[in-house]
């Protein structure tokens, strides 16, 4: 009778399956702890503190990393007012909750995840579309509160619908997007030139 060798037996593979799963999962847990420590807001330069909305955010090419990295320098308070850490977090939180409540992600993407019907919002705060920094906040506020009236379709005919965003929610969203723009995304989206870079290339 032909006996099945050990390495082709059911028990061998059962044990292998258990070990492979356990080891992989354990590694994932370890990596998760490490990642969480590095991405909590303000713990490293990867994900900034919420108070970054008080600062000017730009990107510069980092030769040693071979990609653009965020540069936070100088005061540039959002809506002209320096916020405390708590106030900043509160405003960004309102923005994030509004972002979820208005279902933004099913047209837009952020960090590249979402639907693909409208532009990525990861660095929308720095997009040259807002022309220059003087009018940016006013334009964004007006746009969010009446998107069809301020439509930016670039010839596609696609408009953002009126989502009933209040002025407070709009301010929150802008704070959320400004904070998001300062996250170090390992160079995504590629080749992005900020509004400042377009001003002085």
């Amino acid at each position, binding site marked *: 009778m032909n006996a099945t060798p050990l390495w082709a037996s059911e028990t061998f*593979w059962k044990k292998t399956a258990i070990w492979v799963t356990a080891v992989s999962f354990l590694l*994932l847990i370890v990596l998760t702890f490490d990642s969480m420590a*590095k991405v909590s807001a303000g713990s490293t330069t990867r994900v900034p503190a919420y108070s970054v909305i008080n600062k000017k955010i730009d990107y510069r090419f980092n030769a040693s990393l071979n990609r653009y990295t965020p540069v936070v320098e100088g005061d540039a308070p959002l809506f002209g007012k320096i916020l405390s850490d708590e106030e900043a977090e509160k405003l960004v939180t309102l923005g994030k909750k509004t*972002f*979820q409540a208005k*279902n933004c992600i099913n047209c837009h993407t952020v960090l590249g995840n*979402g639907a693909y019907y409208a532009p990525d919002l990861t660095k929308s705060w720095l997009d040259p579309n807002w022309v220059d920094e003087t009018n940016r906040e006013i334009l964004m506020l007006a746009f969010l509160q009446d998107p069809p009236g301020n439509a930016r379709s670039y010839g596609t*005919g696609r408009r953002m619908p009126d989502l009933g965003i209040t002025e407070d929610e709009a301010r929150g969203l802008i704070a959320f997007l400004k904070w998001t723009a300062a996250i170090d995304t390992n160079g*995504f989206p590629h080749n992005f030139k900020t509004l400042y870079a377009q001003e002085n290339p």
Partner: protein
Amino acid sequence: MSVGVLDSRNLNGGQKLAVKYFTVAMVLFVAQILFGLLAAVQFIAPGFLFETLDFSVNRMLHINAMVVWMLYGFIGAVYWFLEEESGVEVVGLKLGEIAFWVLTAAVGIVVLVYLFLQIGAGDDTTRWLINEGREYIEAPRWADIGIVAVMLVFFYNVAGTFSKGRWSGVSGVLTLDLVALVGLYLAGMFYTTNVTVDYYWWWWVVHLWVEATWEVLVGCIMAWSLMKLLGVRRKIVQTWLYIEVALMFGSGILGLGHHYFWIGTPEYWLSIGGFFSALEPIPLVAMVVHSIYDAGVHKFKSTNHPALGWVIAHTFGNFFGAGVWGFMHTLPQINLYTHGTQWTASHGHLSFFGAYATINIAFFYLAVQQWRGNVWMGANLADNGWKWKWSMGLLNLGVVGMTVALLIAGYEQSFIERAVEGSTWSGYFAAQTHPWFTEAMFWRLIMGIVTAAGLALLIWDLATIGAGETRPALVIERHEEPGVKAAVVQTA
């Protein structure tokens, strides 16, 4: 036992519950295609249903309907074989029945809220009652809790029934996999302002469901189907199931890394994600050997031609969708351009269809065969089986067509928007108005309509196949433990 008519006396308790799940699954499949078509139209005519049923709503319903019909199909399939596999009746059938109605009512309410309320104010109430606003898991928190409760009932039925009856390799893997499935869903049930942390855990739910636990769940369903459909020996099927678990979890769990390239997580994920992505297709490719070996060495006879046809469609769909389409854009050096473009949508369409929809459809055919009194579904079907053949052809053509169209759109987007224009908003729109893109969207809609036609035919076929058939199903020689054999004989 009645032959040739749909009669619930042909089914055991678990199977009666299963066909309820299958019926809702088909309804949701229709919803998936319907909302997909509406969203596809909006790419071509953006004014269509503007501020009534916006793209965001259609797209959300398109994908949610898909996720939920897959789950209904899986749950149904497990209930289907639970009694045969365990050798005893389902322990909490009444409870399972209640859970089914609760889940279905919850799904109905969520859909109505999505359609008519759609969005809310930027506060916690919206997240709890209307929409969580996180892609794929938009269901409001109350529904999340309901889903977990229903899944726990399902888990109780599975674990309890096997404990009372008999455990096997398939049931052991299945039960552990369900623990992981429920546990992972919890990882998506909290709010955080930090968008990086948010996406980190969101991917636990999405990736570890779709690319790990779902795959293993389908592996279990496949393992059982192969024994049923082709009479493959249990010992061999189970050994392969363990091999699959080792390969899928071995590559899939850390393969999670390929979603952590650009969300703000540390750079070492580029290496981890890249490494596992580079090696991920190897098991899939190596398994080709196994398929050919089996096909060549055994001369299989199948009791159910449509089901076997869909299993074969699964093999190809999974290979191209997950393997080829996945690997094409997975390394960070190229993913930097393709991430967040229609490329992902292309990959998503083919891989979900190939990996999951096909298997569910195959199982629906197995179910309907038994439901009609285990009738003949081999060769020489009435009308030459044109309906199942055409529906399979149209569905596959439709999905492959959409996949190719979206690939062209995604390629153009990566090129124009990312590489040339530098990812600004004007770059985004320049890519959206490029002829390659607009024509691709046109063809995607056409192929969506082809898919819808295939679905209509599929429903017609499932409702009529085997009706009035008097020949009994082909009997396949089995090599199994006496207990299971008895169970099979009993139900047959």
